[in-house]
């Protein structure tokens, strides 16, 4: 009979409509602004309304999420910032849209380059968030951030990030990417000890 197919289809939408109310009932008013409910709604068993009430609610970003690079510094004595960056320039060379500008430090006395950046700029209007700089940095000095709320009223003054704006402590990195951090630190420690061992071997 003509119309059976339409009715069957409408049954599906009706089911969806009913589900959205049933799921509301199931959470008893705690369906929104509740991390537990958010995870269930967005999971593979989620039913009912799928959307998220941004900005009151935010989806948690996974660890690998990448948005605009930042530079890592280690905290030395008296709060001194020890940049991991050696201004080797690999990130600037590998960057597809070429949005990284680095000025190398030259030693005032000898005139030779020192392994630290004097200036470091990233034009975030051009950056395409590909993450290649973080992937190929041999010193784990540049990493991708999780902070995606960067909109501002004036791109002329706020969208070229300089070294100060880019720098973040190592602890920040450890907080946003714990698994990556643990893996990389283990590798660094391993390399360090291998270096020490080689030194010892040379001494003897």
């Amino acid at each position, binding site marked *: 009979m003509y119309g059976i197919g339409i009715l069957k289809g409408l049954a599906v939408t009706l089911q969806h409509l009913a589900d959205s109310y049933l799921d509301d009932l199931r959470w008893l008013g705690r369906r929104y602004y509740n991390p537990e409910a958010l995870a269930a709604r967005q999971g*593979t068993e989620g039913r009912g309304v799928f959307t998220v009430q941004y900005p009151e609610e935010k989806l948690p970003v996974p660890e690998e999420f990448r948005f605009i690079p930042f530079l890592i510094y280690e905290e030395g004595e008296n709060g001194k910032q020890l940049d991991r960056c050696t201004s080797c320039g690999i990130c600037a060379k590998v960057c597809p849209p070429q949005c990284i500008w680095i000025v190398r430090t030259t030693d005032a006395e000898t005139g030779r380059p020192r392994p630290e950046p004097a200036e470091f700029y990233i034009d975030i209007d051009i950056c395409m968030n590909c993450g*290649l700089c973080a992937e190929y940095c041999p010193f784990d000095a540049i990493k991708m951030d999780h902070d995606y709320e960067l909109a501002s009223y004036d791109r002329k003054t706020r969208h070229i990030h300089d070294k100060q704006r880019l720098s973040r402590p190592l602890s920040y990195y450890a907080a946003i990417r714990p698994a990556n951090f643990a893996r990389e630190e283990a590798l660094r420690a391993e390399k360090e000890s291998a270096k020490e061992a080689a030194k010892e071997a040379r001494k003897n």
Partner: protein
Amino acid sequence: MTESPAPVLLESLEARFSPGARRDDRPGFEGYIVEAARLLDFARVLRDELGYDFLSSVTGVDYLPDGRMESVYHAYRTTGGPGLVFKVQVPRDNPVVPSLVGLYPGAELQERESWDLLGIRYEGHPDLRRILTWDGFYGHPLRKDWQEAYFEEEGKPLKNRWPEGRVYRIEDKVPFHHNVKYPAGWTPEGWVPEGDNALYAALGKISSTDQDAADSMDTDQIVVNLGPQHPSTHGVFRMVVRLDGETIRSLKPVMGYLHRNHEKIGERNTYLMNMPFTDRLDYFCSMSNNFGYALAVEKLMAIRPPERAEYIRVLMAELTRIVNHMSAIGFLLNDLGAFFTPVMYAFEERELILDLFEMTSGSRMMCNYFRFGGLARDLPAGAMERARELVFNRLPRKIDELDRFLTGSEIIRGRCVGVGVLPREKAIAYSQVGPVLRASGVSYDVRRADPYSIYDRLDFDVCVRQNGDVYDRFMIRFDEMRQSLRILEQVVRDMPGGEIQTGKPQYQVRVPAGESYGRVEGPKGELGFYLVSNGKPNPWRYHVRAPSFINLTALEEMCKGNKLADVVVTLGSIDIVLGEVDR
């Protein structure tokens, strides 16, 4: 079904056309070099005697140092097997090549593109106008001596970024600097735009005697512009149709509104830098785009990824296919007037899959996940569980639900059955690929016809439907999603452990000189990447054979004789993404 090309016939090909055709014996190159005068004979023999009935790709290369232009063709048999490459070399100052549109109508848009971007003139082409750049454009941008505004250097990395990086904003540079070239004697004040007269002329006026309707009513023909604002929800695209009453007599697609010369950017980039740019071609299926490009470069470098990487690649590519087909079905329903409910149902599943992409690659859509000889990183904890949950539980359920929701509907059947019909022979002649080709009864899938990665080991069927109308193109996407699920079940079950990268990850890969053509069965059809390397860090030529661009060649054929209201539905059934069409 993969049969080897008859070697005897191919051997005799050279002798038969000597000296008109010879083997391309440059190191790293393959195929034949045909003289322009013999091209049509050569192509006719290929098509009619050797069975190469499918002209997949037409493009050009500018060999500036040699003073030559080359027009490059890739032909296949729809029965399967590897392809055949042939080229025509012409002098750079007068590049004229006979057009193959008469033999392979699928060359029409591609020859126009090659004319537009490289300035190779295809003699005998019925409508050789610019296609991607605008009609007042001066010069041919893919020529090696053409420089764009803001031109800095021939190749990246640019020298002023390090060690003395001087930061600047692009608009602080003079926009129309000496990089912009004008024709001699041209002044902006005296310029009168030509308008669309050439376009309207190309539509052709059908004389009243041609009309099949032999009624006595005197009707006039009118031209209607659909677009360029979203004629449906696919992006900025324009269709110009000539109507007789409500019936389509002829149609021309107009595109290029999203053109950014992806290929020129690609030739300035290093090989690795191109990977994130391929994401932006068909932004629904970035994993498939990565796949095709990685294959092309790996072919040149003669490396293969380790087993685990191959499995993860197929996992991602097939999930991408489900994402794409679900959205394609949803958007087709949009075009039919079922505004956004089906799309939103499809997008729910899409989000769940994109969550998996995000946790793996770091980005939902611009994945940038494949590397030459492997992958960017391994699957994180929890990714396999999510994949298993999706493949075995959620997606089968939801595909069935979408099926129940839509396919039986009498409205959909009424609007789709018998509309936009493309018969089998025409689908092949017009170089259609992917679901469009298979819905017309041609059992051709690159995964089977010329297997890459681990597809030769996987168990799945090539879906075929026979009618070639909108309804079959709609239904075949359901079939293909179910086959993708079959593949995914095997991949998730058999996922091996081990490395995900061959050799050390490198940011500067060494690519030996030569050419390669890597093709994958993307969700929209055969996605090919044609590369020419001269051993330098940047590719000499980087061409994308974009399936949705070439599928548009048959749009006119599908729409002719249908009503105006069916045009939008027919376009929706091809499933185009303008990021890929316009490049």
